[in-house]
């Protein structure tokens, strides 16, 4: 337990207990913090999109204030999603081969296509149809560099007549419907990368892709709550409480389902107690004690369940300010908890030998490609991009006719 903490904080030499295959002791772990961030970021994309589609497809009108913010969040994070993968490659300059000569039995090979599909055919197109009317309006009233950007994004289509807008809406809705299974595919496939590795008892489970999808939805909604509240705070606007209440309700439901399926996975593992079970016990009790029991289970699941669950029952009795703080705390806790979950899956799966006879300690550096600093930069990047997007497309200074402008922005 202590080594886990010291290893996270300072650099210590790799340490092995028991027997590990010689090749496992060389570069350890092979997949480190970058591969932890990859499913985390991808999950946030899928979740934020599902959140947005609640408005578009399921007509949850109360959520309109966060529709555009959710869509832009999904885009900002999607743009960054392949970066950790790319930086992690031994030969990043050959990455295009994944799409040029894909080996179709490999779950990783499908990533290029699923990613391209999701980015080009779903997210960008839907955003364009959503924003087209506003882009035309903004390009008419804005000059300078900003104006050029808006004009470029209209792609030269300036027809904002009634039939054209109705068509926009129809296409946008269709894309949103197509987007839901696409978002599941995007993240389910990420889960399958791990779930398909039968060599590793920590990963190889058919439930892993499902858990990944569910935790993605949870983390994505939490991110939208978080972003919306931060944006409102930065703009010194009041948050739309009905919208926040509904978001929190969906967050609670998603968390209940996610926790139930993750619980089922653990019950199955404990009950079946297959070959790797002994080593898994060491993982839970020692190697991942803090990140699993404290980070993922207590902070990331139980506490938010308690906070959000109590508000479902006592919403009317809790004053707005307290409610807001509880929502904010829950979303932040969930975001940390899901990051801990990705850590536990990716790093946890490499903390024991495939000989099932030994365990390793993780040595994390500060600098370097697989270090703390790089991880923090990659995690900050989507937020930076999102800030630019918000300044460009959710600006308070611009008139907006489209749905989903935050009421906070409207004032």
């Amino acid at each position, binding site marked *: 337990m202590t080594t886990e903490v010291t290893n996270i904080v300072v650099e210590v030499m790799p340490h092995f207990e*028991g*027997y590990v*295959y*010689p*090749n*496992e*002791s*060389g*570069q350890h772990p*092979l*997949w480190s913090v970058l591969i932890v961030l990859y499913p985390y970021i991808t999950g946030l994309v899928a979740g934020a999109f599902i959140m947005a589609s609640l408005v578009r497809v399921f007509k949850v009108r109360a959520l309109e204030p966060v529709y555009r913010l959710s869509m832009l969040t999904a885009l900002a994070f999607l743009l960054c999603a392949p970066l950790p*993968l790319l930086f*992690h*490659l*031994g*030969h*990043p300059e*050959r*990455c295009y*081969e*994944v*799409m*040029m*000569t*894909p*080996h*179709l*039995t*490999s*779950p*990783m*090979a499908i*990533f290029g296509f699923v990613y391209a599909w999701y980015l*080009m*055919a779903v997210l960008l197109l839907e955003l364009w149809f959503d924003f087209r009317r506003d882009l035309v309006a903004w390009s008419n009233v804005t000059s300078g560099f900003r104006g050029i950007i808006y004009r470029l994004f209209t*792609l030269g*289509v*300036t*027809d904002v*007549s009634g*039939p*054209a807008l109705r*068509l926009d809406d129809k296409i946008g809705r269709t894309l949103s419907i197509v987007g839901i299974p696409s978002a599941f595919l995007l993240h389910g496939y990420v889960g399958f*990368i791990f779930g*398909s*590795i*039968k*060599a*590793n008892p920590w990963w190889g489970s058919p439930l892993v892709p499902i858990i990944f999808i569910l935790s993605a939805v949870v983390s994505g909604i939490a991110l939208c709550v978080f972003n919306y509240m931060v944006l409102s705070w930065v703009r010194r606007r009041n948050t739309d409480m009905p919208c926040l209440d509904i978001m929190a309700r969906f967050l609670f439901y998603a968390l209940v389902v996610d926790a139930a399926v993750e619980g089922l996975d653990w019950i199955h593992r404990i009950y079946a107690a297959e070959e790797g079970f002994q080593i898994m016990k060491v993982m839970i009790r020692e190697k991942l004690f803090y990140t699993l029991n404290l980070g993922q289970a207590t902070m990331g699941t139980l506490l938010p369940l308690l906070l959000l669950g109590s508000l479902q029952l006592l919403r009317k009795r809790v004053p707005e300010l307290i409610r807001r703080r509880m929502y904010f705390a829950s979303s932040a806790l969930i975001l940390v908890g899901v990051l801990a979950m990705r850590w536990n899956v990716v790093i946890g799966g490499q903390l024991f*030998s*495939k*000989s*099932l*006879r030994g365990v390793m300690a993780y040595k994390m550096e500060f600098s370097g490609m697989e270090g703390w600093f790089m991880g923090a930069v990659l995690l900050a990047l989507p937020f930076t991009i999102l800030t630019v997007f918000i300044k460009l497309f959710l600006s308070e200074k611009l008139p907006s006719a489209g749905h989903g402008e935050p009421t906070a922005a409207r004032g």
Partner: protein
Amino acid sequence: MKEALSRRNLLGRLGAAAAGLMALPAARTAKAAVQKLFVSANAPNGYDPTKHKWVMAIDINRCIGCGLCAEACKKENHVPDEPNYFRTWVERYVITKPKPGSGEARGEVLVDSPDGGMHGFPEPPVPTDSILHSFFVPKLCNLCEHSPCVQACPVGATFDAPDGTVLIDPKYCIGCGFCIQACPYGCRFLSPVTHTAEKCTLCYHRITHGLNPACVEVCPTQARIFGDLKNAKPDDPITQFYQNNRVEALKPYLGTEPRVLYAGMDKEVR
């Protein structure tokens, strides 16, 4: 309506561009597949991979743990000295006697492989008289019939050659490490020199010239048996091995169907 039509045209063109992009990978995959079939790494002109089926077998009873095989492999294949990477290595299993009255059939199982066994093994970690069994197990690529590494490679850089070997094209490997994670036997590593995955090739540059792999060549006790199943004669060591031994594979429950089979295996070997 004119504008609406232009949007439709735009979508049509985008669709056509996407279709074109989709067709490109298919064409390149086909080309790569053809290349792989006909061009085998380091093979001399005239070597026909379809006329051979190379295999290795291990007789655990014969291995004395000298580690010459691991050393020869390192030298022959320029496997990096540091860190501790091996295309083949030797494990030592020490099974102690059970404590009297414990009701156990056997005692503790202690496994080690210092430096991959390359420089032999130190004294056993427990007193000699408390040892029930002790044996050495050479490990190498298991040449799986259903290789999880080949299945997992996103670009097809690692492939099942028609002659039974599982090879990696170092000019093609993107170094993602998926194959290393997928190999249940720990046989692969990411080379710090080439930044690509590496593994045992059965010394492909030697066997295609009619020579034995380096590890087989130096083994003083013939614990490693190498042969060509497509051209095996009745008195060949590999034929004799299968005839005289009951054999077992590593982790058979994973369904990888390893072609490297072991004689004298113990349940503790994973």
